[in-house]
């Protein structure tokens, strides 16, 4: 099997501070993973704010250049493709879905404008009828129709509809990989599962691989095939989602799982924070420089000391 997307030892450092007190902060340290061709999957990156998950997503999209390491798409490095035909070809295959559906469309412009532009530029469709057909097909795959969306401004649609329109926008150019950065965190509770279920349908029916970035372990468990947990820029645990979340090994992963507010024992006020796990994950972070990812079998990696 050949790699579709290969994130190879990628690190990103940001320079912080003023002229005299410049320090380097690592947003992402030595991230490695690959998505295979031919086996679409939902790959979830879990982390809290400051874990580097969004920076990693931006690097995969080519919006940020890695300081170290390389990201390759179908064997070709993606950095340096800032414009031109190669960049366009890459953008046709790798498309983003953004976090806030209310921000993702210009409030002064019609929503279909973006879908149309994507179809025109990336699929080279010019005829009116073909454009409409392509747009309708993409919208149908997310449960909308062109008639519902055409001529509408963002404020005329609900958050769930907008997020689906945004996904349809990305799907118009028939991408191989969809990078969804917290796609449901700003969507109302009653509409949230529709989006999450949609991501699963995309994988099963359209063969699109999804890199799902979230802080929500519950939805991650619900839809993902593989999961990668990040703490302060470092990958601490990685493997099959169910396996990792049913029995997390790294203290930080265990802390995250323990902090998820359970709904099964609703009304019992079970809020005692896991102090020992907090302590353990802090210790793990302090000794992170001297740790490495250890193979545990079946593609599972856990960061361990030594």
């Amino acid at each position, binding site marked *: 099997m050949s790699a579709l997307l290969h994130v190879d030892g990628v690190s990103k450092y940001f320079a912080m501070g003023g002229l005299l007190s410049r320090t380097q902060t690592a947003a992402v340290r030595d991230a490695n993973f690959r998505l295979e061709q031919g086996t679409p999957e939902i790959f979830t990156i879990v982390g809290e704010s400051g874990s580097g998950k969004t920076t990693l997503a931006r690097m995969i999209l080519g919006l940020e250049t890695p300081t170290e390491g390389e990201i390759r798409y179908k064997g070709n490095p993606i950095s340096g493709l800032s414009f031109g035909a190669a960049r366009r070809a890459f953008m046709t295959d790798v498309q983003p879905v*953004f976090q806030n559906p209310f*921000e*993702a469309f210009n409030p002064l412009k019609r929503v279909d404008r*973006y879908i149309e*532009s994507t179809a025109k530029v990336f699929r080279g469709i010019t005829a009116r009828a073909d454009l409409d057909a392509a747009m309708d097909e993409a919208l149908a795959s997310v449960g909308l129709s062109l008639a519902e969306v055409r001529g509408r401004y963002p404020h005329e649609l609900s958050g769930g509809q907008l997020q689906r329109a945004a996904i349809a926008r990305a799907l118009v150019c028939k991408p191989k990989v969809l990078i969804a950065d917290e796609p449901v965190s700003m969507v109302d509770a009653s509409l949230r599962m529709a989006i999450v279920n949609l991501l699963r349908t995309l994988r099963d029916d359209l063969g699109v691989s999804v890199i799902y970035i979230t802080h929500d372990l519950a939805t991650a468990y619900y839809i993902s095939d593989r999961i990668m947990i990040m703490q302060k820029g470092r990958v601490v645990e990685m493997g099959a989602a169910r396996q990792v979340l049913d029995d997390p090994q790294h203290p930080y992963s265990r802390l995250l799982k323990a902090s998820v507010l359970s709904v099964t024992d609703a009304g019992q006020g079970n809020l005692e924070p896991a102090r020992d796990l907090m302590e353990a994950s802090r210790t793990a972070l302090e000794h992170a420089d001297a740790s490495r990812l250890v193979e545990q079998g079946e593609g599972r990696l856990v960061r361990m000391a030594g």
Partner: protein
Amino acid sequence: MLTTFRDLFRYNIEFRIGVVLVSLIVIFSCLSFFSPYVPEQIYTVIPDQPPSLEHWFGTNSRGQDLFWNLTFAFRNTLVFGLIVAVLSRIISIVVGMTAGYLSGWVDRGLMFVNDIFVALPIFPILILFYFVLRNDLDTYTLALIMACLGWPFDARLIRSVGLGLRHREFTRQAIFAGMSPAKIMFEEHLPYVMPIIFSTAMANMIWSIGFEVTLGVLGFTNLNVPTIGTTLYWANNHSAMVVGTWWWVIIPVILIILTFIGLFLLAVSMNEHIDPRSRLRRMGGGNG
């Protein structure tokens, strides 16, 4: 756009007064098209007549009917202000949006040039142009020069808006929808800059007309073309206040002050309209 003006008109008393004042001045200047006199000709009527039914604003010492002469003066001055405003808006939009959206070294380069223009001493430069061009310095040439000097402050303002828009998610959406930078700048971002462009255009007109009047009064311009500046120059030249032809000075001054107040009120009310909080406060108050 139309609804914006309707809202402004309905809820904003400053805007209403501004519109009325500016419209009056515009109508007045348009009367010049029906003038019975040719503006460059002198001694066509009896000089130094005070305002009367025959000559509403009186006549000046050069034998011109002041009413009709001033219609020409205002037309020329307003056209001058408008040309400066439009041309300098175009430059500031292009520079500001490009610097804001592309940022990086393009931004640094453009803002370097921008800061040079900010620092230029405008008045000596204009006088220098007069000495070189002499009577070739007509309204249009002067407008062109002023436009080249009047953009940098507003370009910086537009750039700051552009910088903010660059990081909005819809900009990234547009990039991944395959839109070109030019398309993003002028179709996605321009609508956000329009209110600023309108309100700075008014301020810019006040600025450029002020300069025109100053240059005219001092005589550093083509004195045969009637403008507010040259009208005052001739009045001063004939010692109008000393001789007692006060209308020659007072009437144009009142009219130009009304123009300035009108433009100023338009700029202020549009500026307030840009900020949604102050706009809502006013509209909420207007509702009851």
